[in-house]
């Protein structure tokens, strides 16, 4: 009942022209980003961050959330029409979606993907609404030891996103180390400033986010010389009929449940969710031989899963302050930039903020459904924009954005330097997400560690001796050691 009252309050705040407009802008940008290969929602949010600096936190977060789940819708178009997944989470959709397009059923594939995404996004938001406040209530009992353990869990989980655990952990530690530049948060000493005044405030999250997800990403993509895709305009109706619905209704529901729970797990995300949903669908199908040859369920399930996962990933971000993906790591940084403290206290201290954003996700999903079907042809035209034209514009936006943040040339030089570093990170598969998370969470991490060690007379033991902190530490070990154990097991089997 309390949840519904909060949600009603969220809707009351949302129905202002300003917030609805930001919701519409967010989902539109998300769709465009999803369609354009070479730029993902994390890069889009990073590049747009400077525009929202000092602005309205609610409006900006509504827009960022819209970009995140809107991109999942947009990624479907490229997967189905040209077999180029705009997002990694649309890879599975491209298998059967593209086959359907070749058979002249592109409209059906896009239509069922949009309907499935809408249902999954909406049900996922219901899950977010129910799970996040409950999780936050438990987390309100956290002390310094629990926060310390929580940050380590977040870094450990996000380290798994890139594929190599060790590379991810290196990046997480590097992010924490870079965040120690500036003024010591407890005693006010300058650290690692090397006599440079501009370093007294530390390295801004925004500068690194733009450098890694904007400049670094552009360099990595430009090296491959991406060309515009050739696409086939859908010839059939995009509106699914009753038979399509009957054939896919359970696939959509299964995809939604799988996607939501995988999305909630820190470190897993929309991509894994879509892979699992596809595999499960093939397993339960009475005609698995149709998979890979244009089965409509094989489009409905992964598309529902990736949308539900995008919403599920916001549960740990809002409730614990731990992101589950690249994009939510950037969003977390944005929340801190707006002066909010993501985590358990957010639901208590900024209830209006959280519930308006949640309410916006219902409206955003509805807007996407309404926009997606009639505008398929228009969005498909975007596929013709060559990357050669797109990336210079992104770079110009990066320059303007970084400069606007503190009107400082030093930040621009830092962004250029870290952009080159980001290119090598991308090239050698060192994920940027743990680095950004380390940078964002370092103040909380260091404060919690120093408070905990002060209370325990210099000991780190509370991380394992306190029940909740000990449980989190055990979970972290399980998350980190599981893939290692799996690898050893597979090797011994061979």
């Amino acid at each position: 009942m309390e949840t519904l009252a909060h949600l009603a309050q969220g809707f009351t705040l949302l129905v202002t022209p300003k917030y609805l407009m930001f919701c519409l802008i967010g989902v539109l940008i998300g769709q465009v980003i999803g369609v354009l290969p070479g730029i993902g929602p994390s890069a889009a949010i990073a590049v747009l961050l400077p525009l929202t600096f000092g602005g309205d936190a609610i409006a900006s977060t509504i827009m960022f959330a819209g970009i995140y789940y809107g991109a999942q819708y947009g990624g479907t178009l490229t997967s189905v029409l040209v077999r180029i997944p705009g997002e990694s989470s649309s890879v599975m959709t491209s298998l059967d979606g593209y086959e359907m397009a070749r058979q002249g059923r592109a409209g059906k594939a896009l239509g069922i993907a949009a309907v499935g995404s809408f249902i999954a996004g909406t049900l996922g938001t219901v899950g977010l609404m129910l799970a996040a406040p409950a999780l936050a209530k438990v987390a309100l009992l956290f002390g310094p030891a629990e926060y310390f353990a929580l940050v380590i869990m977040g870094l450990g989980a996000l380290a798994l996103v890139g594929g190599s655990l060790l590379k991810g952990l290196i990046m997480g530690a590097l992010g924490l180390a870079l965040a120690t530049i500036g003024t010591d948060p407890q005693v006010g000493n300058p650290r690692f400033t090397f006599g440079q005044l501009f370093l007294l405030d530390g390295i801004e999250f925004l500068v690194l986010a733009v450098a890694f997800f904007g400049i670094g990403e552009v360099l990595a993509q430009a090296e491959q010389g991406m060309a515009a895709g050739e696409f086939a305009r859908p010839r059939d109706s995009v509106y699914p009929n009753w038979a399509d619905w009957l054939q896919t209704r359970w696939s959509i529901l299964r995809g939604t449940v799988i996607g939501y729970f995988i999305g909630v797990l820190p470190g897993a995300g929309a991509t894994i969710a879509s892979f699992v949903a596809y595999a499960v669908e093939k397993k339960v199908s009475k005609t698995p031989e149709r998979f890979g040859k244009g089965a409509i369920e094989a489009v409905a399930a992964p598309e529902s899963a990736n949308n539900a996962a995008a919403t599920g990933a916001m549960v740990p971000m809002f409730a614990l302050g731990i992101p589950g993906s690249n994009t939510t790591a950037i969003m977390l940084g944005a929340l801190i930039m707006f002066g909010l403290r993501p985590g358990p206290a957010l639901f208590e201290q900024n209830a209006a903020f959280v519930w308006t954003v949640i309410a916006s996700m219902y409206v955003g999903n509805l807007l996407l459904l309404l926009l997606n079907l009639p505008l398929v042809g228009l969005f498909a035209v975007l596929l013709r924009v060559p990357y050669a034209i797109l990336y210079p514009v992104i770079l110009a936006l990066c320059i303007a954005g970084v400069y606007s943040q503190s009107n400082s040339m030093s930040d621009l030089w830092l962004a250029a330097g870290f952009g080159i570093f980001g290119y090598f990170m991308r090239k050698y598969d060192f994920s940027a997400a743990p680095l950004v998370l380390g940078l964002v969470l370092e103040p909380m991490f260091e404060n919690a560690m120093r408070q905990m060690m002060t209370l325990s007379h210099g000991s780190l033991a509370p991380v394992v001796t306190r029940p909740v902190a000990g449980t989190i530490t055990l979970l972290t070990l399980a998350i980190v050691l599981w893939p290692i154990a799996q690898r050893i097991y597979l090797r011994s089997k061979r």
Partner: protein
Amino acid sequence: MNASGTVWGERCFAVVIGLFGAFWIIQASKLPYWSDFAPGSGFLPFWLGVALVIMVAAFLLQSFRAAPVDAQSEAPVDAGGRGRIVQIMLGLIACLALLEWVGFVVSVGLYLAFLIGWVERRTLVETAAVSLGTVAFLWLLFKKWLGVPFPEGPWGF
């Protein structure tokens, strides 16, 4: 670049991070490690430096112990790709160096024209339209709407 080149590049990149970790240990040693009852300013950076060095060493060990890579197993990267990256970065450095002298509009406009017209060999019309359109849009958005004091050249923009 073939697979073995990628592996060596990856190792060199890891070594750079390891050297950064060692540098952090040295610099952190100059800060107070412990104050009365709690860790001092240098405590966390010191251990982060140590963690970086150890993890990079473990990564290198893992990399050298892994099966040797087949040099033919990976498709070569677009030959012009690396040249493109160098041009984009040199262009960016020149753009930033000029920014305070000639102003945002001219500097970024020229950079865009360089990228689209020279690096990507697009037509003159495309180059002019995208360069001028983008700087005009950014100028209006940031300068006029958001009030960002972009650097101005001698001609007032």
